[in-house]
């Protein structure tokens, strides 16, 4: 042991004792100050503070901000806010909830009204945490509650903003809807939500929620026994959310919705010059106003169970076999890979044999000898079977991907789907089976595994229309504060390029013009007097019904067996400014059903433009070098 008991080196004990005395004095000083403060608070200010704690109930009230508006490209408000009147109750000592509820019911009864919920009180009522007894009540109830407020201690009316979707179901798939935060959202660490907050649940409302939401304000007030505010202790004003300005043209959107006339499907109109989405409808749709104060269970079930899926935005989530729309891509591939030249003719006798299988052309007796131009114009299947077989699936896939298929377009909406561009590798990985040649034949005319969303189709054709640039679809132009100052602007973004020769693009352009404007073209229904539309029809066979489930198949066959009608187009041919994709589910042929819808949207677009330029009667002359066959 090096240290012996009791022996001390280092500082002298006396020195320590000196310091300990200082410490003692300091401690005494500190604690005396605390004691004086305690005396001051409890004895001198005691009565005042007691008053404040006793007869004044301090209420902390949250003031919900106004959500930002959603506007179209012309500044027309599409989604607004409106006041909603809620009946609230502040739990106070000594009040019998059952009795209070009965009193409210009695008061309502005088005007033959009823309380909307059977059990407005939750199981546990915590003191000073307000209970929302009834949401979104009419003015009659507001008046009844206000006039009887003295008989209803603790009950009061609160005004909160709720969403007003002016165009309802027409824009609903884009704007989405709002609702109360879910338990999961409450637990998100970065969410900063409180129970009862409103948040975006779908579409723009959800994706742009951080901008639209604004920030809560709050208020600390002292209230008397009747719940009346007697002293305002402080208030932080809420900050309204930012407005979102869409690229959508509300008028065109409406026209597109009307053109659909109740058919199921989707239509997307894009400006091929920069990727702006001018209209995007999905039918059938839903009324987003229903979700404001919590959708009723039966309404929700009805929407959920509807086989036509009104809650999904088919323009981005609907994946369809592109059918003959795909022939444009196969044609581009064949030209670029030197499988054919524009003059290569193939004889179509109505069918194409591969081993012992027979692939039919849609035209029973065949198209005869056709070159690429006519094959596209008349949508000859045999021509593309032949070319597709020579190309092989992977070459076709290479071009399909160049056109943007099989990948997300990157539009700022939730639930976008990728579609599918099949390749040998994909099948081997996915199905553990080698690729079959027969499948290449189906792929060549856009059937088989191929899947694309309407947005992808319009993007693909836009890229051809603008001379080869693939733009990211723009749905939002800018975010601005409620005073109009711009906080964020979304600029066109090039995300890909068609590496096709000028000659190839010219050939394809001409062929698409022919589809609409030449005799025998399958897209004649989209023809306008100005002969300015280029397009391609598609009719895709519906697969996907379970083969083994025969009974179900039989039952549903009537409605679900019919083909999907597709049409994709752009106009005017020179310097196109609008491209449209239309998919009508189980509606029949593309030329007969989808093309007229596209024409209506085109007419609406050009009519509006003409009106805008009053005085200048824009004579759009059809391109001189284009004639019928």
């Amino acid at each position, binding site marked *: 042991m090096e240290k012996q008991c*009791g*022996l001390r080196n280092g500082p002298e004990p006396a020195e*320590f004792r000196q310091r300990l005395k200082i410490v003692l004095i300091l401690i*005494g000083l500190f604690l005396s100050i605390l004691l004086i403060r305690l005396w001051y608070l*409890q004895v001198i200010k*005691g009565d005042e503070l007691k008053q*404040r*704690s*006793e007869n004044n109930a301090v209420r902390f009230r949250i003031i919900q901000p106004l959500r930002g508006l959603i506007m179209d490209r012309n500044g027309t408000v599409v989604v607004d806010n409106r006041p909603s009147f809620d009946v609230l109750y502040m739990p106070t000592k000594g009040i019998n909830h059952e009795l209070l509820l009965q009193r409210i019911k009695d008061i309502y009864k005088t005007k033959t009204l009823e309380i909307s919920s059977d059990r407005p009180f939750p199981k*546990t009522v915590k003191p000073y945490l307000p209970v929302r007894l009834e949401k979104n009540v009419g003015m009659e109830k507001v008046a009844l509650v206000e006039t009887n407020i003295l008989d209803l201690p603790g009950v009061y009316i609160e005004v909160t903003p709720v969403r007003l979707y002016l165009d309802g179901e027409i824009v609903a798939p884009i704007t989405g809807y709002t609702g109360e935060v879910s338990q999961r959202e409450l637990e998100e660490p970065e969410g900063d939500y409180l129970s009862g907050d409103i948040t975006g649940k779908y579409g723009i409302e959800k994706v742009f929620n951080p901008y639209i939401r604004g920030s809560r304000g709050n208020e600390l007030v002292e209230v008397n026994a009747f719940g009346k505010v007697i002293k305002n202790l402080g208030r932080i004003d809420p900050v309204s959310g930012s407005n979102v300005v869409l690229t959508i043209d509300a008028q065109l959107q409406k026209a597109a919705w009307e053109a659909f006339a109740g058919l199921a499907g989707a239509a997307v109109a894009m400006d091929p010059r920069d990727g702006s989405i001018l209209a995007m409808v999905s039918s059938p749709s839903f009324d987003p106003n229903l979700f404001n104060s919590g959708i009723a269970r039966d309404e929700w079930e009805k929407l959920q169970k509807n086989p036509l899926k009104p809650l999904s935005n088919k323009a981005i989530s609907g994946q369809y076999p592109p059918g003959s729309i795909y022939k444009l891509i196969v044609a581009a591939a064949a030209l670029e890979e030197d499988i054919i030249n524009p003059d290569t003719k193939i004889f179509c006798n109505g069918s194409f044999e591969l081993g012992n299988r027979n692939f039919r052309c849609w035209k029973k007796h065949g198209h005869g000898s056709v070159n690429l131009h006519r094959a596209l114009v008349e949508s000859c299947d045999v021509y593309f079977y032949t070319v597709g077989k020579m190309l092989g699936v992977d070459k076709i896939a290479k071009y399909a991907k160049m056109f943007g298929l099989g990948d997300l377009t990157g539009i700022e909406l939730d639930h976008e789907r990728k579609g599918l561009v099949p390749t040998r590798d994909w099948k081997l990985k996915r199905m553990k089976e080698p690729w079959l040649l027969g499948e290449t034949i189906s792929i060549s005319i856009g059937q088989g595994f191929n899947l694309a969303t309407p947005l992808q189709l319009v993007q693909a054709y836009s890229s051809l229309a603008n001379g080869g640039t693939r733009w990211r679809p723009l749905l939002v132009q800018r975010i601005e504060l409620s005073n109009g100052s711009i906080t964020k602007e979304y600029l066109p973004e090039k995300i890909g390029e068609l590496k096709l020769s000028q000659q190839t693009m010219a050939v394809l352009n001409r062929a698409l013009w022919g589809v609409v404007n030449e005799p025998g073209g399958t897209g004649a229904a989209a023809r306008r007097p100005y002969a300015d539309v280029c397009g391609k029809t598609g009719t895709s066979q519906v697969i996907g019904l379970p083969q083994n489930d025969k009974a179900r198949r039989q039952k549903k066959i009537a409605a679900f067996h019919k083909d999907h009608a597709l049409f994709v187009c752009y106009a005017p041919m020179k310097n196109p400014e609008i491209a449209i994709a239309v998919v009508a589910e189980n509606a029949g042929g593309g030329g007969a059903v989808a093309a007229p819808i596209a024409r209506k949207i085109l007419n609406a677009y050009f009519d509006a433009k003409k009106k805008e330029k009053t005085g200048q009667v824009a004579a759009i002359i059809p391109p001189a070098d284009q004639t019928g066959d």
Partner: protein
Amino acid sequence: MIFLKYDRRIFQNFDWMLFALVMSICAIGIINIYSTGFSLIDNRSPLYLKQLQWIMLGLSLMLVTFLIDYRAISQAAYIIYAISMASLIFVAMFGHTANGAQRWISFGFLLFQPSELMKVAIIIALARYFDDHKSNEPYLLRELFVPFLMVIVPSVLILKQPDLGTALVTIIISTSIVLFIGMNWKSILIAVASVLAMLPLAWPFLKDYQKDRLLTFLSPESDPLGTGYHIIQSMIAIGSGGFLGKGFLKGSQTQLKFLPEQQTDFVFSVFAEEWGFIGGLVLMLMFISLIIWGLKIAWHSKDLLGTILAFGITALIAWQVVINMGMVLGMIPVVGIPLPFLSYGGSAIVTLLGAIGLLMNVSVRRFILQH
């Protein structure tokens, strides 16, 4: 082994006064925590029972720290320090997060907060260090470089959790010890000057809410909704207690949950509301007695090690009492320091009782160490 030898005098000279004081304060703490949990409508497991279990655990630790000669404990000072350091680092990497702070190590059913252990570990380590490096002259700055590192590294880790309060208390206690041992006047001036110079640099490292708290402290009424809310509600609670208090289980501020953090940081407000100035005075006198008693032990200790240990542990209690009460009385910013023995919190009460064991250890061995 002289250190572990049984000695009758350990029990003959047992410090009953210290033990009784601490146990009385703990008892007040349990009664008080019972009151905060009284009005809970949702049936959570009653906190006062949990606190009781923690105190039992703390008493067992106290027995250990009391029985083993403190000089033996000081032999293990750096090991204890290293263990605390390791658990702080562990918590920084894999710790359990609650209320946005990562302070706890989870042992399944219980959460352990290493920063509480660290405070005591630093006291022991500093005592050992200065005992090993005795000097008849006041220490110069360069002689204090090792103790500085010993304190600053864990403090930064604690600050990162983030736990500004505990980090500050750790530094304040260590500084008190160093000043108590004796430091060259010039060195003190240089140290103070450099700390003042560093302060503006530290500001950006604080979290927003920590800045808020420091700023709103300056004028709580200007922000009655945000950070000021705690202080105002606490002052209303204390003030409304008046001279005699509202009575046990009758504090409306407490029972109606206006008062935030009432089992932990604001536990004194609960007590003051229900027991009034009289209660507050009694409690404060008990703390004052405890602190004086602790200093008396430091005074009478027969060796430097014992003096530093006793002083350090007393400083730990004293500073936390002063800071916590100053906080709930609205005199200093809300930095989240619990009130010793009264605030609910397992790690804190267990380590505190362990420290009290050490204090009794020093107290009793002055009779043994005589020759």
